[in-house]
């Protein structure tokens, strides 16, 4: 009998090794704490990716704005944004992959170590500026979106806020951020500030430039607000291309420019130049043409018809410069700001200089950015079809057309500015599958999951349709 007891006892002892099993549920292969700056860097990187990308599942504005078009798969140039559930990806990338990390960064800052209170205040302002930037993109894309109730994991189905009210609050936040930025204190470490390398002065210029952009965006519906904001920001905004909010990619995967992934690494032949832009550049002998595109196999710059099936070799396509692994992304640049200044003057805002001078500055800066010379710019601006005095149409048409050219490769900004300025007029694609997107329809997940608030928002904006206009798009 004793022998058996020994056997049982030895078996029981095998089992008795672990007493308190509750402590074994902790994840040991992931971090449970992180420095706040790392979340900021990640958010900015994700924002740059989504705005830079040419992926047809996310960023299709180069196609809808007829800078580019496609060869074989023509759904997107024909305004089909549903098949690939594009609004869902865009929305999720901005909320989940950008805004949430910025919020987490701000949450962690007060208790983090290694930075002075003053530096933390600067860092908090920088994170907030990027949130303001991101929310402005969301509003410009969808109209009403969750804002006051967003980013709360205890409110899983948040209500939507009125787009204009969100914009008003974004202005308030931006002003507070500008006020909070202190050049006497440090910002993020140079390595973690992936836009300005830790330079607080640059952030002040960026914030003011963003303020100017947002102000001009609402200029048609809130001229007073636009006027005061632009006038306040004018002298503090970008003064040259040195100030540009550039996002630098690396010539190494996976930190390369996403355009390279889509166009070069994939070896696909999906995208070619669209005829509207190529024809325009040809007609104007635009010096940027050889920098925007490379010619077709016959060494000629020809653009394809949007929405039609096009043979890759017959058409011009994106220049090798754009498809380089380390071609930088751009969040906001001097070219845009100069166009805004020109426009502000036309709207009667009190901004230094003349509309023509700012218009010329913008175009010159664009030509230089793309690799042209000041001689090229001077020659180009002398073209009567370009010169501000003689170019066709109203100031909206002049600025709209040149801005549409200058914002090449920045699909989202082109879309927003063209919706606002209404020029140039885009011809219909070959076989439209839906309406031109004045906005993105809400993601299908919102319909399914957040049904009540979705329905309220759809009603409030006048129907969840691609043809519904965002609040500032009144013309």
């Amino acid at each position: 009998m004793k022998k058996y007891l020994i056997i049982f006892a030895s078996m029981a002892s095998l089992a008795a090794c672990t007493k308190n099993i509750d402590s074994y549920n902790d994840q040991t292969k992931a971090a449970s704490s992180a420095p706040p700056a790392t979340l900021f860097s990640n958010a900015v990187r994700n924002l740059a990716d989504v705005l830079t990308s040419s992926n047809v599942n996310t960023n299709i504005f180069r196609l809808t704005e007829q800078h580019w078009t496609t060869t074989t798969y023509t759904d997107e140039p024909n305004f089909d944004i549903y098949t690939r559930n594009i609004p869902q990806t865009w929305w999720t990338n901005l909320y989940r992959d950008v805004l949430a990390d910025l919020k987490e960064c701000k949450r962690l800052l007060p208790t983090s170590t290694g930075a002075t209170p003053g530096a933390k205040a600067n860092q908090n302002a920088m994170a907030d500026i990027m949130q303001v930037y991101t929310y402005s993109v969301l509003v410009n894309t969808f109209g009403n979106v969750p804002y006051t109730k967003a980013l709360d994991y205890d409110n899983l189905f948040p209500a939507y806020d009125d787009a204009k009210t969100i914009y008003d609050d974004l202005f308030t936040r931006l002003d507070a951020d500008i006020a909070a930025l202190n050049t006497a204190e440090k910002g993020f470490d140079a390595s973690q500030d992936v836009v300005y390398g830790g330079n607080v002065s640059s952030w002040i210029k960026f914030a003011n430039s963003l303020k100017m952009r947002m102000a001009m965006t609402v200029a048609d519906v809130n001229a007073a607000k636009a006027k005061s904001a632009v006038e306040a920001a004018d002298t503090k905004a970008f003064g040259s291309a040195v100030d540009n909010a550039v996002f630098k990619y690396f010539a190494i995967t996976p930190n390369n420019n996403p355009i390279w992934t889509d166009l070069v690494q994939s070896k696909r032949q999906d995208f070619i130049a669209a005829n509207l832009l190529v024809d325009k550049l040809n007609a104007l002998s635009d010096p940027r043409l050889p920098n925007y595109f490379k010619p077709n196999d016959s060494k000629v710059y020809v653009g394809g018809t949007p929405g039609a099936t096009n043979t890759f070799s017959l058409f011009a396509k994106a220049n090798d410069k754009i498809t380089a692994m380390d071609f930088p992304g751009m969040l906001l640049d001097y070219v845009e700001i100069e166009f805004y200044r020109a426009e502000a003057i036309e709207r009667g805002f009190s901004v230094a200089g003349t509309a023509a001078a700012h218009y010329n500055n913008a175009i010159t800066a664009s030509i230089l950015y793309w690799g042209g010379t000041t001689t090229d710019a001077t020659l180009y601006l002398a073209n009567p079809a370009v010169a501000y005095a003689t170019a066709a149409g109203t100031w909206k048409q002049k600025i709209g057309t040149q801005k549409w050219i200058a914002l090449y490769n920045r699909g989202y900004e082109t879309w927003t500015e063209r919706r606002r300025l209404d020029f140039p007029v885009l011809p219909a694609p070959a076989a439209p599958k839906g309406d031109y997107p004045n906005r993105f329809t809400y993601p299908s997940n919102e319909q399914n999951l957040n049904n009540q608030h979705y329905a309220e928002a759809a009603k409030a904006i006048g129907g969840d349709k691609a043809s519904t206009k965002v609040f500032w798009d009144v013309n």
Partner: protein
Amino acid sequence: MRKQLSMLLCIAMLSISSFAQTRQVSGQIKDEKGQPIPYATIKLKGAKGATSADQNGNFKIEVTGAKPSLLVTAAGFDASELAVGENGSVGVVLKSQSSMNEVVVTALGIKRNKNVLPYAAQQISGDQVSATRSNNFVTSLSGKISGLEVRQGNAMGASTNVVIRGAKSFLSSNQALFVIDGVPVDNSNNNSANKSTTTSNDQTSGRGGYDYGNAAADINPDDIESITVLKGAASTALYGSRAANGVVMITTKKSKRGLGIVVNTGVTVGKIDKSTFTKYQKEYGAGYQQGGYSTTASGSPNTSFWWKDAFGTGSNSLIVPTTEDASYGARFDPNLMVYHWDSFDSTSAFYKKQKPWVGADNDPVSFYETAIATNNSVFVDGGNDQASFKMGYTRTDERGVLPNSRLLKNLLNFGATYKVNDKLTLAGNINFSKIDGRGRYGTGYSKYNVNQAFRQWWETNVDVQELKDAYNRTGQNITWNWADPTKPSGLYPIYTDNPYFIRNKNYETDSRYRYFGNASVNYNVNSWLNVLGRVSLDSYDELEEERIAVGSVAVPSYSRFNRTFREFNYDLMASVNKDLNPSLNLKAVAGMNLRRNYVNSIYAITNGGLVVPDLYFLGNSVSPISAPTESDDKIFVDGYYANATLTYKELLSLDVSGRYDHSSTLPANNNTYFYPSISGSFNFSKLLPNATWLSSGKLRANYAEVGNSAPFSKLKDVYDKPTVFGNATLFSLPNTKNNPNLKPERTKSAEIGLEMAFFQNRFGLDVTYYDTKSVDQIFPVAVSTATGYSNKYVNAGTIRNRGVELSVFATPIKTKDFSWTINLNFTSNRNKVLALYDSSKNLQINQSSLQGGVSINATLGEPYGTIQGKTWNRYQPTGEKLVGANGYYSITSTTNNVIGNINPDWIGGIYNTFKYKNLSLGFLIDVRKGGDVFSLDLYYGMATGLYPETVGNNDLGNPKRAPLASGGGLIVPGVTADGKANTKRVDNTSYGYYGYVYNPAAAFVYDASYVKLRELNFTYSFPQSLISKTKVFKGIDLSVIGRNLWIIHKNLPYSDPEENLSAGNVQGYQSGAYPTTRSLGVNLKMKF
């Protein structure tokens, strides 16, 4: 050695004794109710040969020896051994077996008599699954058990989806638990979805990757004695949480006295069933449109081709548009000479030569090869009064229908028992398996899967055998899909690799070394109390390596995934079996189970390409590799349980059980939970002893609850760690929010059943009705991503499953030489999502998006598993499909329309067995009625014009694909906004009319019903008279076995409705579907 000698001596003694005197004995064989049993077999123990009883159970037999005894066997009855007395007449009473007196193995390996079992448990013998010699015995369960739905993919070694009584969990596994000899074994599905954080490699979302099969297939089928399926919570409560989805209990063979050797050897060949593969139209070739490939200004004589300078000669010629992976181009014309893809392959006989514009002689059907599998096994057992052992070895070597595919399995098992004395028995067994895969089939919408091109994006002018030659000549990725063949820099594949290059260069390899087994001590304290102690281990290590070769369309890469799995179970169990008085029996069990799970893995992949071609290790990465993804999961559960069964005169039984679990994965203040079950049975046939027509009858009812805990580490949050960006360290919030306030989830189930058998068990049935509700489930609900998360873990939701299970057996004919038996199983389950979380009306089950704009969902108020996507707008007054002003269907912009339901209305199987003397013929008809499947293959393939429907003549008698001006084109059936029939004729000269371009996803949802001849088994047993002459054999069976020989009926064209991407909750979706393999084999079974 000494023992062997003594064994031999015993055998010798037996044979000597048979020379003693002989006499004749006669008798009659009856059942328990006094009815004669016809055609029983009577054998004199220790002698050769046997005799049969006649129709009235009467027999005569010659007996010899001092104390002769007879072995009496009859189908449907327990075998009986009886001593022959001095007089020449014996009466034999056999206990009926086929339903009621059967011993059923229940939870924790407890054996129960079926006549008092208060819950549904269906048992089949090991022969019924091993006879088909399938290398995954799980597939052989299909159609043989009611309540059990088995879905198997067509890929070699594909995982098998085994769901009992419907899906109960929203997002967790709904797979049944597999238990071998009372010890749970892991049945993880280790497909690509489970290891990588990248969605591009997510196999269950149909975006590619491999199906690595499921681990339950590691069991040696020749070691299986029986399989019992415990369906409801009452029967599985003792296993605790993990058995909420039902249990497939496997009992391995017990050794018999003496030495037994069984050898199986067989070979199987397989060919694809062409009714489950694409049929290609033969009228038009490459292109997305007729005309338009060259401007008219270029002077091209046929603008459906490229008009280019092909070889720098300065003059243009017609070239097949090789980038166009569709077949909506030029009409075939044997008189038209054009440059094809191989005109640009300098190794081709057609280099720089034109060929006629005709359809391919060898379409992709010819890509599929003949599958060959060999199966060899040897099983040895033996024993004496004190000790016994068994040893088995099975080797299956399967080469699939795709080139370069092989799955090699080596399964070895050993078990032994030693009876120390009357009280103490020690036992142990160990199973070792080694699974080696190479070239498993790539699945879904990916470059790994040759069917993505074959079924969806293909040029009907491409001859697959020419592609084979091109690959064999060069070993390079020479393909039909050149980016631009007219210039050297364009001689690379743009979208699609040569399928032979894919199979031979972009192959995976995998291996799994597995050990499982247990050691137990069993002590009989006294006649009614027994104590069992057992330690068991299930342990495996696996390695999966995937490759993309330099030269492929996709970025060259090498990835490796190492995973180790360890599960320890420590059991201590005391059981009581005591007759409290002559009519009242108590069986009770009390015990504890400590479960310890450790799973860790590491996944790494090269970054940015491979430096040296054909060299596959992580260091060969072009760019520095990102940090590998690691996991180290631990789940500990301590369970304490008790169960008591009171049986009154085998008439009534009452069964009560309870289990208390303490889980490591729940919050410390809420991590223990108790759940009970109560069951009863009423064996009413005992009250009707005079009803001779009624062999048995039992009514049973039960109610049970099962608690369940959370997955590993879902309470506290951690950060994701993206790759360092330059010098910037990155961290990110995860996409799923954890929840520190989780509580145990619960499944409640009730069941009522009736079992009856009639006419001496010639006919019987077992019918069950059940109702299961799973509440407070722990799962990551999908949330508005405006929260900053995609999902959050909560307790929420209710799924109800209700259903009827029916098993019927019958022996319509039974004569001396011939018998016919039927086993029928029928299951009808209805499930419904009764609650989700908060205001949400829908939960998407596929975690990453499926191609084609469809999703598989749990929708409030609908069955679990709705297919959603775009559908037709309808003309409201009549519900007819609305046609827009452009002449095409008006399609919803919303994608949340329910367009299908993956659940069948019912499933069933009928197994017929015919026996004539030594011949037996068995076949299984497997039926599934209803349920839907979305076909991405037709969604795209119809658009690209591969299928015969896209050609031929229209209603005017003109070619559909002729231009409108020539009388071509089609009228979309439907009504216009004014309710009148559409009359607008639309063009069909370019892609899309039949496919996704102009039709909603709903147009590609098909009824998934099928009727299949699943198994066919024709066996000849060599007669004993012949066998005995050999002196070597005890028996020889020669079988011809067929599997999936004939799909008798289906409604899904060009594919097998059963084909899926993988086991798991995402069913009802096909992309790059594999054809069914019809297999036919022979097997020789020899007993020594």
